[in-house]
């Protein structure tokens, strides 16, 4: 397989064949899900921005970016990158873990450097570098914040995301963090990381419970729906809403000291930029970058919100 690569590389170099530089140029393929919701939109933005910046910094690196609207398309994208662009490294944020595992494994077997971002593959040890988001930590930080804000305990409702492993890990982390704090989860429903769904769910929670002290919306898009429902019902008992992910509108409200949105917990879509950057370092230097790089979820409060505010990002 490796001399096939050499032949391919040689052919490619001969075809391009104009400058000696071309032989040294390495291509990094980046394959990510398309911008179908807010977080993914932010991730696309940061991927593009990182690529634009790194192409300036490293003249001997070339980048190929492909966005896929489903797992099948992502597999095709990766196959095309290997077949036609002769990539030396692949940065992939798998649409789904299971369907992407075999194709990424065969890419890794052919000697290409593989960086996996956010969602892990189903078989461990395929990737050279894993840039991981910390979903359990996301829940834990959120839960600890809730517990610190409600020292005497209280009644809260929780909105969950689309039923997935990501959502389960977050909720478990949250539940274990509030254990023994006197906080009682009176209601928990799926708002599917969607503004409209969370609006409906919150309206029904408000009808169902006379007393709700706080809401863990667990996502900033859902927090938007929750806030609209509370505002419409004109309920004064809800003291605050905790979202998550770090949407710019919400970080702005934290920065401005909004009492309903006192904090946010990050799950930064910019982790794709970390992954691309580390891969570029690995391709161009001898600095070791293999292993696992976990991006911790950070609590954003009024004091540090400015560092997390990206006014140009779509998310």
């Amino acid at each position, binding site marked *: 397989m490796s001399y096939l690569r050499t032949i391919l590389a040689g052919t490619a170099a001969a075809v391009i064949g104009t400058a000696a530089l071309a032989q040294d140029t390495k291509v990094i393929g980046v394959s990510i899900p*398309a*911008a*179908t*919701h*807010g977080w*993914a*939109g*932010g991730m*696309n*933005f940061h991927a593009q921005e990182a690529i634009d910046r790194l192409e300036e910094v490293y003249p001997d690196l070339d980048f190929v970016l492909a966005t896929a609207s489903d797992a099948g398309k992502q597999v095709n994208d990766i196959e095309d990158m290997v077949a036609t662009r002769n990539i030396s490294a692949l940065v992939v944020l798998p649409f789904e873990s299971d369907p992407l595992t075999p194709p990424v494994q065969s890419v890794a077997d052919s000697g290409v450097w593989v960086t996996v971002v956010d969602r892990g593959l189903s078989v461990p040890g395929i990737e050279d570098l894993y840039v991981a988001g910390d979903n359990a930590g996301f829940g834990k930080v959120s839960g600890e914040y809730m517990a610190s804000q409600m020292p005497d305990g209280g009644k809260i409702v929780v909105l*969950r995301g689309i*039923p997935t492993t990501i959502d389960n890990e977050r909720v478990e982390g949250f539940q274990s963090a509030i254990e023994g704090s006197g906080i009682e989860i009176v*209601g*928990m*429903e*799926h708002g599917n*990381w*969607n*503004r*409209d769904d969370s*609006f*409906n*769910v919150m*309206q*029904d*929670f408000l*009808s*169902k419970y006379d007393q709700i002290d706080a809401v863990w919306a667990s996502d900033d*898009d859902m927090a*938007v*729906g929750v806030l*609209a429902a509370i505002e*419409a*019902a004109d309920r004064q008992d809800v003291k605050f809403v905790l979202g998550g992910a770090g949407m710019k*509108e919400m970080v702005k409200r934290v920065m401005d000291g909004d009492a309903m949105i006192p904090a946010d917990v990050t799950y930064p879509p910019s982790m794709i930029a970390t992954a691309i950057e580390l891969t570029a370092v690995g391709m161009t230097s001898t600095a070791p970058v293999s292993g696992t790089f976990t991006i911790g979820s950070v609590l954003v409060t009024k004091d540090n919100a400015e560092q997390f505010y990206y006014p140009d*990002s*779509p*998310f």
Partner: protein
Amino acid sequence: MATETANPPRARRSAIPSMSVLGPILALVILIVIGAALNGNFLSAGNINNVLSRSAFIGIIAVGMTFVITAGGLDLSVGSMAAFIAGLMILVMNAALPSLGVGVPIILLGMLVALIAGIVAGMLNGFLITTLGIEAFIVTLGTMGIYRSLVTWLANGGTLSLDFDLRTFYRPVYFDGVLGIAWPIIVFAVVVILGEVLMSKARFGRHCAATGSNEHVAHYSNVNVNRTRMLTYIMLGLLVGVATIMYVPRLGSASASTGVLWELEAIAAVIIGGTVLKGGFGRVWGTVIGVLILSLIDNILNLTDLVSPYLNGAIQGVIIVLAVILQREAKAKG
């Protein structure tokens, strides 16, 4: 007359109302009784207002869908179309803000944009289906993808948000109303009454039924089949525009996840209400009951802890199928 063949279920109603008429009403009554028994707040004015207001979007669209399906058509693009129109409306209103300022004119401009965009989108579907003679399923599957991509593109993958001051000004259109009844409910009611009159009393309704029942017979009976179909799609597009006008003030935003699966909810509501999926017979008031059944299931499941939230979809599915079986049984016996 083709119009006569479309009406046999009605002829029998004089004796005992048939199951196809009673079925949906019965299901709705049972749901209301269950809801009231499970939670004391179910029948509170606040909850009823919430449920009816949020039903209004799908409801307004479903009334238009009733005509399209009665005339033998189908439209899968309405959910994406609503998202696209919402995005377009927000963009236009934000763009016009510096010159018009916050006030009634800019809201009227937004509404006008929504209605025109709806009519144009409906005309496009209608043109491809009637003039070019392409299957409605394929045409609207195509436009569904087109509108969904367009809104994602307009929003740059993120969310389009209405300017904050503008949203505060526009907000009462969803949340306020007359005598405690919210505007979306009032608009929904007006659309339903007009739709019911149009379907059961006006010539247009008979033409729709005739077209859906048998295109050729309708044609020989001097019904302009293509024009009737075209009008149903334009009307549906217009109603999608109306629904969007009520939707935008609620959260003041539109994104790629706006209106996902609205088309299927609208179609399900129409069929639960007793309209025949292959066309030829439509019932606007039945559609209203279908819409209410669907939103009440969601509401009741949220208000109680009886079943795992993972199963919400399954329960909805069972009730949809049951409602249709009830009607089929009645037809088979009759």
